[in-house]
């Protein structure tokens, strides 16, 4: 076997904090071989990004790093910043998450590429420019010789990420580290960028570390997978083994809580109960034990090491009960029991007989394009929402999917404003256009919204009680407010003893539940959900999705649900509309659209979703020849 190009041994990273020393990474070992891709998966705070940053020597000075990182036999830890600069961008290339901030806005991309080339190699300006053109061509930027003079703001996010990749591979690195390279991008762009990374890897023969939280991305790109939890690898093996025969309860849970875009979901998802531990003063025991449904007393006696399994070679697991786990089951039983959903109050009522709760007819929203400093002239119109018509019945979830900038959020805000400039919004049979101000205020009881970002949707200075009481007080509530608050807390699965705490004491998923309780306070018939789970980790997300499903069944709510994640949409929604440039290109029952898409855009969108199953991903990829990828083969 060839020698590893990058070898990490017992890497540990500590950060100082007010609460004490935070152990962000606690013993990571891996060997990376040329041409292989190692996928590092884990939820936020599992230490995957810190691992990559410490390999690159990009951590701040106050971080305490121990262990060993050997690149082509040379120890990297302890090198000075200057010595590291010779390796960064030369031996090891890095692709960052946010393409918007990875490029300098004041230089054109040609100069930035030339700088990257000349920093490590003694070549002339002319030669460097020629290489830059070839690199841009390689990553699929059309007319590269013309685009060299373009500035980053003249490129879209996906194009910018291509430029970032071009810079990362400019000096034929031996190792390519991609840290969440597609998290900030739309799903169709994501598929293209993953292809470009694969191509770049093939051209340079580099070993790749793919860091992601998305099981689908791992399944599509990685050869080997390392699952991290609480700063430690808990399972490692090749991608097929990890997905088909996971031997660590955390991996099993992670896979169970990931919604599948390729199968219709009748079963609820299985969330992992609890939150990851705080990495301060950790006890010597399995860190997953408090969340593990099959934990035994022995699990609390010491941290189980990552040991190779006897029966499958190259597969390691840090679980005491690993030998008992087979086919995601332990002793023949499912490890994570799917939760029981409430009975659907609207079950058996056909759609035609259900009352219409929200009806939107020919909704339009236009923004004027103006020019001129003193006198603004109207030079054009942006049609953000261009004639939408749909209706939602009681107990039904209608999803609008589309990529960023297609007008989904504008649609939601227009509906929430209840004051459409063009078109009609009819809420429970009442046209919003004809409402007086007091009627509109009263109508707000019937329609409420849950926002995407759990950080900014709750005022950090109010206690949970005050947050939930706000709509009750302002829109009027006849009964006992305290009793209602307690009821709502129970409804969203939170404990009433936490009412006097502030939002900052809660995790993202809990905050989203509080936001849901606030939205449900006035007993609305329509709930507008603006990407309610996209900011959450997979295992937490599953719990919130189940809660939404449960509430819909129990209370007969109607959802207007906006998302870019098609797997979540497939799991939750009954009807689906695909939006593109302000218009619906296709709409219908969810399963029908997924299984038999009509519009080209829908097909493209569906084809781009990464499937969290390496076999299915390969089956789908194989008939897709290279010419389907955006890069023209030379």
């Amino acid at each position, binding site marked *: 076997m060839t020698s590893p190009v990058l070898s990490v041994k017992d890497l540990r990273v*500590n*950060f*100082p*904090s*007010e*609460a004490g020393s*935070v152990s962000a990474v606690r013993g990571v070992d891996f060997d990376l071989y040329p041409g292989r891709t190692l996928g590092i998966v884990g939820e*936020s*705070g599992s230490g995957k*990004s810190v691992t990559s940053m410490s390999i690159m020597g990009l951590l701040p000075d*106050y971080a305490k790093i121990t262990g060993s990182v050997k690149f082509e036999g040379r120890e990297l830890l302890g090198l000075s910043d200057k010595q590291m600069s010779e390796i960064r961008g030369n031996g090891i290339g890095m692709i960052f*998450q*946010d393409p918007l901030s990875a490029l300098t806005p004041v230089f054109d991309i040609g100069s930035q590429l030339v700088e990257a080339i000349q920093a490590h190699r003694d070549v002339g300006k002319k030669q460097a420019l020629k290489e830059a053109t070839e690199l841009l061509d390689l990553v699929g930027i059309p007319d590269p010789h013309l685009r060299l003079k373009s500035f980053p703001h003249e490129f879209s996010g996906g194009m910018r990420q291509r430029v970032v990749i071009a810079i990362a591979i400019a000096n034929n690195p031996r190792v390519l580290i991609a840290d*969440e390279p597609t*998290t*900030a991008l739309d799903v169709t762009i994501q598929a293209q960028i993953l292809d470009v990374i694969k191509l770049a890897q093939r051209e340079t023969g580099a070993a790749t570390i793919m860091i992601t939280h998305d099981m689908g991305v791992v399944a599509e790109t990685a050869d080997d997978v390392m699952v991290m939890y609480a700063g430690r690898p808990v399972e490692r093996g090749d991608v097929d083994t990890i997905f088909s025969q996971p031997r660590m309860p955390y991996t099993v849970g992670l896979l169970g809580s990931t919604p599948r875009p390729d199968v219709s979901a009748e079963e609820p998802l299985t*969330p992992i*109960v*609890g*939150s990851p*531990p*705080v990495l*301060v*003063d950790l006890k010597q025991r399995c860190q997953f034990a*408090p*969340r593990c449904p099959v934990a035994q007393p022995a699990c609390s006696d010491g941290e189980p090491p990552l040991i190779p399994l006897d029966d499958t070679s190259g597969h390691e697991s840090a679980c005491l009960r690993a030998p008992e786990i087979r086919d995601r089951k332990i002793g023949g039983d499912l490890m994570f029991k799917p*939760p029981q*959903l*409430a009975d659907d109050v609207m079950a058996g009522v056909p759609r035609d007989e259900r009352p219409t709760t929200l009806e939107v007819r020919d909704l339009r929203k236009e923004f004027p394009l103006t020019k001129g400093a003193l006198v603004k002239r109207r030079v054009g119109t942006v049609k953000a929402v261009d004639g939408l018509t749909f209706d939602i019945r009681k107990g039904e979830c209608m999803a609008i999917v589309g990529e960023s900038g297609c007008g989904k959020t504008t649609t939601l805000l227009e509906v929430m404003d209840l004051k459409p400039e063009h078109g009609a919004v009819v809420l429970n049979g009442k046209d919003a256009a004809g409402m007086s101000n007091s009627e509109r*205020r009263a109508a*707000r009881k019937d329609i*409420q*919204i849950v926002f*995407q*970002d*759990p*950080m*900014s949707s709750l*005022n*950090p200075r*109010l206690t949970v009680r005050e947050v939930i009481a*706000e*709509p009750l007080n*302002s*829109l009027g509530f006849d009964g006992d407010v305290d009793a209602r608050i307690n009821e709502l807390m129970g409804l*969203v*699965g*939170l*404990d009433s003893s*936490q009412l006097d705490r*502030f939002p*900052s*004491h809660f995790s993202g*998923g*809990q905050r989203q539940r509080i936001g849901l309780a606030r939205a449900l306070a006035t007993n609305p018939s329509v709930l507008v959900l603006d990407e309610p789970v*996209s*900011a959450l980790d997979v295992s937490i997300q*599953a*719990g919130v999705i*189940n809660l939404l499903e449960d509430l819909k069944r129990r209370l007969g709510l109607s959802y207007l649900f906006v998302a870019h994640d098609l797997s979540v949409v497939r799991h939750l929604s009954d009807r689906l509309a695909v939006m593109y440039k302000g218009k619906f290109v296709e709409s219908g029952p969810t399963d029908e659209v997924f299984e038999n898409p009509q519009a080209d855009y829908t097909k493209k969108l569906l084809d781009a979703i990464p499937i969290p199953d390496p076999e299915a991903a390969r089956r789908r990829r194989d008939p897709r020849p290279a010419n389907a990828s955006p890069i023209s083969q030379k």
Partner: protein
Amino acid sequence: MTPSKDRNYFKQEPRGEITAHSEVATGDPFSPAEAEQVATLEQMPRGTSRYKLYLRRFFRNKLATIGLIILVFLMLAALFGGFFAKWDYTEPDFLALSEPPSPEHWFGTNDTGNDLYAQTIHGLGRSLTIAIVVSLATLVISAFVGSAAALWGGVAEKAVLAVIHFLLSIPTFLLIALVVADSGGDWKLLIVVLIVFGWMYQARVIWSLALTVREQDYVRAAGYMGVSKLRTIVRHVIPNIGSLLIIQFVFGVVGTVGSETALSFLGLGVKLPDVSLGTLLQGGTAAVQSSPWLFYFPAATLTLLTVSMAFIGDGLRDALDPNSNSGGKA
């Protein structure tokens, strides 16, 4: 701080404030009580409350602590120092004209025989009263005007900003001097004038901060919950720029003491027989050669006051700013 680049799907939690209560799903294998029990099995760091954290960070700054001690001492002196004075500040001792400090007159006397200790205590109190009242009032006005302009937007915002920019561009100090020149040294009028011409700059700063709060989802949610704009300002906008307001208040006090003493020094603010630190300084500079104590005692008091406030302001800014260097070391 962990350099988390996962920002898009994970906003960093304030460190040390993470709960031991766990995510609880409906219908999961645990009841909420059981899940809680499981989650609290280990001794998770419960986290420090925000105010305790601020206090700890504030007192870690030595200069700020010293500033606070000095300020408390000065305030006590202004409140209770008068009880120890043997003379009233208006009562001249004709047997001791321009006397240096002595057991009878601790800080000495001036050329009309006024006891400088009594005058300094009174002047300190007068200056502090003016400073605190003016600073509080400008703070309230600017907070309301600034956040209202941000929240209402449109024409209202443009009009308010136009007024603010107009007022900012005129030389206010001169204007104040003109208005108070005829007042005969009434300190209450001085307060009013300082407030009227002192709120614009802060309002401009608060407006730009309120703009970022306006974009938060909870402000939007409040609108959709039928909460009135005024209530939104009081409940959602102002509390979230609170730390800035506290700092503005402290530095506002320093600034007001400065303008008040400057005006009084020029003979335009507080006038005899009433005294403020500025009036005393004016008298002191005239006699700095013959009776230097008349200058040094008020000057030292003024310096102590402004320096202590500046230290406190710096300390507060560091304590409230999560990105400052006053975090702990591992």
